[in-house]
C-alpha cells in the first residue's frame, strides 16, 4: 500500500513539474501566433456560457468555451485581418474585430427572448472534429419543449431518447446505457456524484430542469477525468445565477411545482440561484386510492463568488428526499402507530477556480455526498393515565457517503492540443444495512437489539491525464489514462484504465473513429426483491466481490452536412463487463448479517453489443432526430440461472426513437416524440400447483425466457410563450400516448380459484396534461 502511495506521489509530482514549466510564452515561442483568451457570457445575467464557439475566419481556426466559459484561441500575430465570430444556441451571433494590443477579450452575447430558430451556422463546428467522445449533449430548447407527463420536463426522460440509452417503458426515469444497470451511471451535479437520481418510484428524476445549464451524457470513449462507474457519465452543470438582476420563476404542474430564484447578493460580485421543487398534490394517492401519504422535495442552491476576473468560488448544495408515511390512532386515544419510509441524497461542494494564466486553469473541489434509505416503525400504547405503557420501535438504515477532493488542471497548448490532468481522492463510507429493534412494556420483556452489516470505510485515489491533439495529418488522437487504488479495510485493489480514441477525417464532412475505454466501479448495487420492492443497497467492493470492470470498444462513422444542420452517425460497440455482483436467488438481504458469501452471487459477466444509427437536425425551424438501435445484452453468474447466460432485463433487439420539434411562430413551439421498441424479457412461471392450504404455487424456469409485446408511443406537446405585464409566461399542453397504445407496464399474476391468470397492466393511457410557468 505504501509502495502504491509513493508511486502515486512520485508520478503526480512529475506531471505537475512538467506542466508548471509550461506557460503561454513557452508555448508560443517561435510561433507567429498571438494568444487570445477570455470568457463568453450572457450579456443580461452574466451567466458563463459552456460550449460557446469562437472562430477566427482569417486563420480558419476556432475553439469552444470550457465548463467555466473560458476560451483560449491562437490567432495570427497580424490580427488586422482577423474577424472573430462568436455563436451559441439561443443567442445572437456576434462578430468582433480583435484589438491587436489586447490578449484578453471577454465577450457578452445577447440572448434571444423567444425561441427564434438558429439559422446561424456554428462556424467552428464546420471545421473541427474535436468532439471525439461518444456523447450526447442536451439541447436546453429541446428539453424545454419536450413532451412530459404533467408538464414535467425531465432530463433523464429526455436522455432516454438518445442513442445508447435503453428504452425502459412507462414510468421509469432511470438510465440503462448499453446493457448497463442503473447504478453503473456516474451522475455528476456540478462535479458532485449523486447515487440515486429518481423520485416518486422513478416517475421523475432528481434533476430540476430549471436549474440545468448544460448536460452531457457520455456512453463510450470516456474522458479519463471520469471514473468509478461502468457504463456512462452524465455531467450536469447548473446555472451560476444572474449577477446583475433578481428573477423569480414559478411553475405549477400536475406532478410537481417549483420555485426558482436567482440574483445578485453583491451586484457584479456574488450571485445566488436557489430552487425548491415539491410534489404538487397527492396525485398518486388520488389515482390509486392509496392509504399512505407520499411526498418528495428537492432543494438546489448555488452561490457564485467572483473573487477577481481570474478567480471564482462556487458553493453548491443539493438535498432531495422522498417520504412515505402512514399513521393510525386508537379511537379511544389508547395507541398511536406510525410507519415511515424515506430515501434521498444530500450533497454539497465548494469549488475554487483559478485562471492561473491564459492557458492554464486550476479547479479545486471538495465536498460530500450521501444517499440514505430508512424504514422506521413506532407504536405506543397508553395506559389509563395517558402515559406510555408499551412501546415498539424499529429503525432500518442503509447509507453510502463519499467525502471527496478533486484537483484538475486544464492546459491549452495550442488550438489543436489540449491537456487535462488531475487527482481525485474519495473516502467512501458504507453502512450496507443496520436494524435497531426495541420493545419495552409492562407485561413483557424489554428488547434492545442492534443487528446489521458492519460499517466499512475505504479510500480511493485516482490519478488521471487526458491528452487531445486534433486535426494532425487528418487524424485526431485522444489518449487518456486513469489509475485507481482502492484501499479497503481488508484488501487493496489497483487498476489502470486506458482510454483511447483515434479519429480520421476521411472527407471534410466524414469522420471515422475508433474508441476504447476501460472502467471500474468500487461498489456494488444490490436490489432486494423482497415482497416486490426493489430497495437499493450499496455494498463496498471486497475480497469475494472485487470492483467490477468493463471494457468497451467501438467504431463510429459520422457525416455532417456542409451547413452543419444535419448529422448522421453510425456506431458499433462491444462491451464486456466482469466481476459483477448480485444477490443469490431467494436470499434475504435484511436478515443475513453473518456472511457475505451466503447471499452474494459474484464473478458475474455481462456482454452487450449493438449498432446505433442516428440522424439529427440541429438547425432551422424544424429540429429533431431519428435514432435506431439494434442491440443484445446478456448476463451470466455461476450462482444464478444454473450458471447459464440469460438476457438482461432491459435487453431490446430493436429500438427506434424519433423527436420532431417545429417552431410554429416566435411564441409557439410544437414537439412530438415517437418510440418503438421490441419486447424486453420477463419471467412467467412454467407450471403451477395448489398446496395443502389452497395456495397457488408457481414454478419458474430459466431467467427472462419470455418477451413482452412491443412497445410504442406517440407524445405531443404545444408550448406557448408570452409576456404578461413584463413577466414571461409559458403554458404547456401535452398529450401523452396520443393513440392510446396499451403498453404493458407490469405483468401481474392474479390467483383465481381455478388457477393463476396473467394480466398486463397499462400505466399510461392517453393522458392530456398542462403546466403553467411564470417568470417574475
Amino acid at each position, binding site marked *: 500500500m505504501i509502495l502504491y502511495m509513493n508511486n502515486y506521489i512520485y508520478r503526480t509530482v512529475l506531471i505537475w513539474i512538467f506542466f508548471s514549466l509550461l506557460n503561454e510564452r513557452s508555448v508560443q515561442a517561435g510561433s507567429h501566433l498571438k494568444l487570445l483568451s477570455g470568457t463568453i457570457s450572457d450579456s443580461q445575467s452574466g451567466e458563463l456560457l459552456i460550449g460557446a464557439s469562437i472562430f477566427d475566419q482569417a486563420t480558419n481556426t476556432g475553439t469552444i468555451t470550457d465548463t467555466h466559459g473560458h476560451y483560449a484561441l491562437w490567432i495570427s500575430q497580424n490580427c488586422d485581418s482577423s474577424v472573430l465570430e462568436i455563436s451559441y444556441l439561443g443567442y445572437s451571433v456576434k462578430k468582433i474585430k480583435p484589438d491587436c494590443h489586447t490578449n484578453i477579450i471577454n465577450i457578452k452575447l445577447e440572448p434571444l427572448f423567444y425561441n427564434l430558430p438558429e439559422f446561424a451556422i456554428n462556424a467552428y463546428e464546420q471545421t473541427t472534429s474535436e468532439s471525439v467522445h461518444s456523447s450526447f449533449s442536451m439541447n436546453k430548447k429541446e428539453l424545454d419543449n419536450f413532451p412530459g407527463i404533467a408538464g414535467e420536463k425531465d432530463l433523464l426522460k429526455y436522455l432516454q431518447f438518445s442513442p445508447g440509452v435503453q428504452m425502459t417503458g412507462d414510468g421509469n426515469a432511470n438510465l440503462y446505457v448499453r446493457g448497463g444497470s442503473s447504478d453503473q451511471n456516474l451522475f455528476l451535479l456540478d462535479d458532485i456524484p449523486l447515487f440515486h437520481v429518481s423520485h416518486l*418510484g422513478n416517475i421523475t428524476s432528481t434533476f430540476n430542469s430549471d436549474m440545468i445549464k448544460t448536460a452531457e451524457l457520455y456512453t463510450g470513449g470516456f474522458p479519463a477525468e471520469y471514473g468509478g462507474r461502468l457504463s456512462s457519465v452524465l455531467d450536469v452543470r447548473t446555472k451560476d445565477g444572474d449577477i446583475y438582476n433578481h428573477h423569480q420563476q414559478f411553475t405549477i404542474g*400536475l406532478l410537481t411545482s417549483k420555485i426558482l430564484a436567482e440574483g445578485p447578493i453583491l451586484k457584479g460580485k456574488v450571485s445566488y440561484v436557489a430552487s425548491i421543487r415539491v410534489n404538487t398534490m397527492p396525485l398518486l394517492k388520488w389515482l390509486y386510492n392509496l392509504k399512505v401519504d407520499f411526498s418528495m422535495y428537492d432543494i438546489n442552491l448555488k452561490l457564485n463568488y467572483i473573487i477577481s476576473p481570474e478567480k471564482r468560488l462556487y458553493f453548491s448544495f443539493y438535498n432531495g428526499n422522498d417520504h412515505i*408515511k402512514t399513521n393510525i390512532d386508537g379511537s379511544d386515544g389508547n395507541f398511536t402507530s406510525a410507519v415511515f419510509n424515506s430515501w434521498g441524497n444530500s450533497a454539497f461542494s465548494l469549488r475554487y477556480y483559478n485562471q492561473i494564466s491564459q492557458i492554464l486553469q486550476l479547479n479545486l473541489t471538495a465536498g460530500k455526498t450521501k444517499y440514505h434509505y430508512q424504514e422506521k416503525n413506532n407504536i405506543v400504547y397508553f395506559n389509563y393515565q395517558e402515559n406510555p405503557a408499551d412501546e415498539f420501535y424499529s429503525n432500518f438504515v442503509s447509507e453510502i457517503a463519499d467525502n471527496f477532493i478533486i484537483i484538475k488542471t486544464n492546459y491549452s497548448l495550442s488550438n489543436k492540443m489540449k491537456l487535462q490532468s488531475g487527482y481525485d481522492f474519495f473516502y467512501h463510507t458504507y453502512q450496507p444495512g443496520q436494524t435497531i429493534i426495541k*420493545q419495552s412494556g409492562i407485561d413483557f420483556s424489554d428488547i434492545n437489539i442492534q443487528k446489521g452489516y458492519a460499517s466499512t470505510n475505504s479510500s480511493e485515489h485516482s490519478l488521471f491525464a487526458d491528452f487531445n491533439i486534433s486535426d494532425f495529418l487528418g487524424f485526431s488522437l485522444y489518449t487518456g489514462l486513469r489509475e485507481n487504488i482502492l484501499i479497503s479495510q481488508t484488501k487493496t485493489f489497483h487498476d489502470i484504465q486506458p482510454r483511447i480514441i483515434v479519429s480520421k477525417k476521411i472527407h471534410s464532412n466524414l469522420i471515422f473513429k475508433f474508441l476504447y475505454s476501460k472502467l471500474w466501479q468500487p461498489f456494488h448495487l444490490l436490489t432486494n426483491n423482497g415482497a416486490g420492492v426493489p430497495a437499493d443497497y450499496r455494498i463496498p467492493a471486497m475480497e469475494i466481490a472485487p470492483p467490477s470492470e468493463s471494457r468497451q470498444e467501438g467504431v463510429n462513422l459520422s457525416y455532417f452536412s456542409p451547413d452543419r444542420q444535419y448529422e448522421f452517425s453510425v456506431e458499433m460497440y462491444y462491451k464486456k463487463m466482469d466481476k459483477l455482483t448480485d444477490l443469490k436467488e431467494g436470499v434475504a438481504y435484511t436478515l443475513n448479517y453473518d456472511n457475505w458469501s451466503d447471499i452474494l452471487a459474484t464473478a458475474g459477466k455481462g456482454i452487450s453489443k449493438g449498432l446505433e444509427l442516428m440522424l439529427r437536425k440541429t438547425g432551422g425551424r424544424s429540429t429533431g432526430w431519428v435514432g435506431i438501435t439494434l442491440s443484445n445484452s446478456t448476463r451470466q453468474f455461476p450462482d444464478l440461472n444454473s450458471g447459464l447466460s440469460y438476457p438482461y432485463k432491459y435487453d431490446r433487439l430493436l429500438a427506434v426513437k424519433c423527436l420532431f420539434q417545429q417552431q410554429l411562430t416566435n411564441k409557439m413551439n410544437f414537439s412530438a416524440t415517437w418510440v418503438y421498441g421490441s419486447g424486453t424479457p420477463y419471467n412467467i412461471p412454467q407450471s403451477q400447483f395448489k398446496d395443502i392450504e389452497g395456495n397457488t404455487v408457481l414454478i419458474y424456469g430459466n431467467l427472462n425466457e419470455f418477451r413482452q409485446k412491443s412497445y410504442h408511443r406517440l407524445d405531443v406537446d404545444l408550448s406557448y410563450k408570452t409576456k404578461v405585464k413584463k413577466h414571461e409566461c409559458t403554458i404547456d399542453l401535452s398529450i401523452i400516448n396520443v393513440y392510446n397504445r396499451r403498453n404493458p407496464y*407490469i405483468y401481474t399474476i392474479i390467483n383465481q380459484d381455478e388457477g*393463476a391468470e396473467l394480466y398486463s397492466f397499462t400505466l399510461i393511457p392517453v393522458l392530456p396534461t398542462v403546466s403553467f410557468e411564470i417568470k417574475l
Partner: protein
Amino acid sequence: MAFYHKIIVIIILLVATACTDLNIVQVDISENFNPDITVNSLMQPDSNIIIIVSPTQAAFSNKTEVKPQISSASLVDILNNQTYSLEIYTWDNYIVLKNQDFCPIPGGEYCIKIQTTQPAKTLIAKDKVPERSANILNLNINPVKGSTAYLGKINFTSIGTDIYYELLIYSQEVVNDTTQTIPFYQTSLSTTNPLITREDYYPSLIVLSQESPKSLLFHIDNPKDTVCIDFEYDNGGIYTNGKTGTCNHNLRIELRTVSESFFLYKTSLYKQMYAAAGDLLYGIAEPVKVVSNIEGGVGLFGSYIKTDTTVFVAGRNDIIYE
C-alpha cells in the same frame, strides 16, 4: 381570478381522464409440458398423517395432467427407527397417502419416501415437528380511529431457541339469530412489529395496492423473551342509516409453532405472491422460487403445533373517516 379558475377546472378534468388498464394475457405453454410431482403434507400432533401427491400443471392452463403411478410409499420415524407403510388412495386428480395407525408426536422427526413409476422418480422429504406450542398470556383488541379497522395485541412467552411462529386470525360475525351458523373466515392482517416487518416476505409500505398477508410469520431466537405482537385487521364496514359501522364479531387467534421447512416454504410463497403481482411504482420484480424440502419433486412436508383463543369484539357505529 377567472383565468386561475379555468386552470383548476382543466387540471381536475385531466386528472379524471387519467385512468389505468388491466388486460388479460393469453399464454399457452401446455404443449410439450412435462409435469413434475408435488408432495404436500402438514403434520400436526395427534392427527393422522395425510400426504397428497399430484402432478404439476402447465401455468395458466386448466388442462389436467396424468397422475403419477406410485409403486411404494413409506414413512420413517427417525427417532424410534420405525417404518410405517402408507396406504394409497386415489381422489380426483390427486393421490392421497395415509396411515390410520400413525400420528406424529411433538418433537418427532419423520421422513417419507415415495417411489413412482411413470415418471420413475424417488421422492424423499424430512421434517421435525416442533416440541410444543407457545403460551398466550393475554390479548386485547382496540378500534382504530377514523377507520373500520382494529388493532390487536397479543402477548406470549417464547418457548425456546430458534423457534418459528405463524399468527393467523379468523373472524365470525355474531348475529342475534342463534339458529344461524356463520363460519369463521380467515382475515388478512398487517403489523408494525419489527420482528415481522424486517422479514423479507413482509410487504413494504412502498408496495402499493397489495393486500396484507394472510398470516404473520416470524422467528424468535431468545428463549427468555415474552413477546408482544401487534396486528391490524379490517373486518369490513356496514353502512346503515347514513352511518358507517362494524359488526359484532368473534375473533379467533391461532398461534402456530412451525417447523423451519414450513417457515421457509411459507415466507418464500408470500414473497413469490408479491413479486408475481408486481408493483405500481417499481414494475416487475424478479421471480421468486418457493423453497421446497421435497427431494426429487416440489411441495412441502411440514409441521406445526397450534394454540388458539377466541374473543368477542363489539361492533361500532358512526365511524367518521379520516
